[in-house]
């Protein structure tokens, strides 16, 4: 999802993709888009398969071949406003796609709501749902008020490459806004600033949602809301700016749609939160793990399918244009990795746990999707299957491991988003266009920042306001304790 700096040519990626193909760079005059492109590392690995193998061709050569910055080339936005209808049409398609992708990512918040409430107890359902409603509402507003400009600072860094102060998005179209269709002239993605903002804003709230699942069934509502707001508004844009905002990681590190920047970020923030908060009462008794059952498998399944659907927008929209080759390739790698993750987790649980476990298979689908997120545009279809399958295996063992470590994560968020987010980022260094060491540095840096920031945030809030509901409230359920409102008042619950 990184917007290429200064020389943004969203629509040229496909051309380059072609060019790199078979490692036979096309000459500029053969390029169907009539202009060679520079910095396009993320999109090259896909083209590696001349001989039908899963070979990866390094792309630096191409980046060298292509002359940097042909000054006379108009940006997509300039092209749009140039009055040429063909350019306007392409701009319009790109913009429509980014808006639709934003809508699909919005739907992921329903997906999270459903998964999280399905995999927790009915006495906490209202609370889980309320938190999710809060997160998407707060997330959009906080990103508008501060985060967007902190994540995409252009030249306005406070600490160059590391930190930028945020500010509210502009309230209307200034003339220059309209011309560059973006916040600053540093970024230019070929669609309007509004499309850009709404897509990024939908992403932002995701991190908090990931935490929400892991801390469910025992966290004080007010304390959670405070922590979530701080993390979404301030922490997420920081790591975001490192990579997508053009910061210190943006040069070589590859994280296409956020295996690290969104998922590992959320997963490690969740891990810290769980460590500060402790496990649910009754989960670990006398050294034994006692399962606390999710109350509705249909709800969990609805959630995962909606997340899968939303991922087409999450990854597909991260192409940042409607480029036909890249968007459709991303759809394929995303779907195949999710499918492979689901199957792998199903068979892993069947083998290891003796029964095919639905909740694990659902986690596996998500794990596969998280895994492919960093390289959805640069990993070929069959390696994508492999990346997804490995994610699906990892997630089962990771869930078992965290349980053994008495780290209580009701929905498996740390494993799905944290561990598989790491794996997915690293996989780009194996199967995709990335360099392994850089990928490791990047994902560790982002995960560590998220973990520490979250540890401090939850730690301080715990010290000041307390973090856990009382034992009585936990037993009775947070629905009554925090909201005085049951989720299913017509039905008799077992306990």
């Amino acid at each position, binding site marked *: 999802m990184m917007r290429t700096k200064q020389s943004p040519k969203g629509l040229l990626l496909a051309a380059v993709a072609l060019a790199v193909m078979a490692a036979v760079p096309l000459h500029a005059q053969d390029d169907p888009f009539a202009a060679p492109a520079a910095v396009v590392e993320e999109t090259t690995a896909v083209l590696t398969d001349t001989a039908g193998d899963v070979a990866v061709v390094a792309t630096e050569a191409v980046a060298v071949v292509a002359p940097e910055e042909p000054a006379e080339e108009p940006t997509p936005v300039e092209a749009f406003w140039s009055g040429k209808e063909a350019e306007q049409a392409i701009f319009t398609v790109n913009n429509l796609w980014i808006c639709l992708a934003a809508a699909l990512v919005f739907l992921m918040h329903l997906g999270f709501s459903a998964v999280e409430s399905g995999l927790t107890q009915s006495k906490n359902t209202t609370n889980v749902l309320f938190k999710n409603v809060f997160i998407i509402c707060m997330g959009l507003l906080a990103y508008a008020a501060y985060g967007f400009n902190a994540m995409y600072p252009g030249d306005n860094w406070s600490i160059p490459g590391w930190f930028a102060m945020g500010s509210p998005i502009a309230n209307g179209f200034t003339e220059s806004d309209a011309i560059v269709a973006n916040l600053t002239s540093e970024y230019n993605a070929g669609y309007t600033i509004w499309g850009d903002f709404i897509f990024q804003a939908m992403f932002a709230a995701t991190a908090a949602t990931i935490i929400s699942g892991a801390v469910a069934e025992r966290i004080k509502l007010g304390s959670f809301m405070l922590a979530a707001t701080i993390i979404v508004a301030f922490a997420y844009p920081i790591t975001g700016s490192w990579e997508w905002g053009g910061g210190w990681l943006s040069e070589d590190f590859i994280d296409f749609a956020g295996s690290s920047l969104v998922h590992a970020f959320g997963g490690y923030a969740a891990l810290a939160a769980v460590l500060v908060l402790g496990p649910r009462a009754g989960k670990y008794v006398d050294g034994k*793990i*006692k*399962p606390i*059952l*999710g109350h509705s498998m249909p709800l969990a399944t609805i959630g995962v399918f909606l997340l899968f659907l939303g991922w087409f927008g999450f990854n597909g929209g991260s192409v940042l244009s409607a480029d036909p080759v890249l968007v459709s390739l991303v759809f394929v790698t995303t779907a195949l990795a999710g499918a492979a993750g689901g199957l792998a987790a199903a068979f892993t*649980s069947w083998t290891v*746990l*003796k*029964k095919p*476990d639905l*909740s*694990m298979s659902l986690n596996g689908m998500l794990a596969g999707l998280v895994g492919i997120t960093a390289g959805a545009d640069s990993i070929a279809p069959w390696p994508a299957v492999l990346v997804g399958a490995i994610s699906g295996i990892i997630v*089962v063992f990771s*869930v*078992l491991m965290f*349980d053994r470590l008495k780290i209580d994560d009701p929905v*498996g968020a740390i494993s799905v988003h944290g561990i598989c987010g790491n794996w997915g980022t690293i996989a780009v260094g194996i199967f995709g266009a990335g360099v392994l060491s850089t990928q490791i540095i990047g994902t560790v840096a982002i995960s560590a920042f998220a973990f520490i920031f979250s540890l401090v945030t939850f730690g301080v809030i715990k010290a000041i306001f307390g973090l856990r509901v009382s034992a009585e409230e936990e037993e009775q359920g947070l629905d009554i304790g925090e909201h005085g409102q049951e989720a299913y008042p017509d039905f008799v619950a077992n306990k």
Partner: protein
Amino acid sequence: MKKIEAIIKPFKLEEVKDALADLGIEGMTVSEVKGFGRQKGHTEIYRGSEYTVDFLPKIKIEVVIADELAEKATGAIVKAAKTGKIGDGKVFISPVEEAIRIRTDETGDKAV
């Protein structure tokens, strides 16, 4: 009067009801219960952790009935509910001192 309480397997409810109706018994009250007994529960697994479900679903039928009908009713229940497999359940008989039909204030055997 006697109260007959029968704990039976859920899928036998229909047959037991019919057997009682055949005896001319016109009223009964049924509830869902969970039984613990010689019939063992089953092990389930959730996200990698095993746990045992000790309590199995059963149906409790309560019939309050005139003393003289008690034996016949008990026999009918036992016959209809029997599968011969473990977990078939129990019948308990206990004394009832008075019964009242709310609608009519009738009492005693007329009330049931």
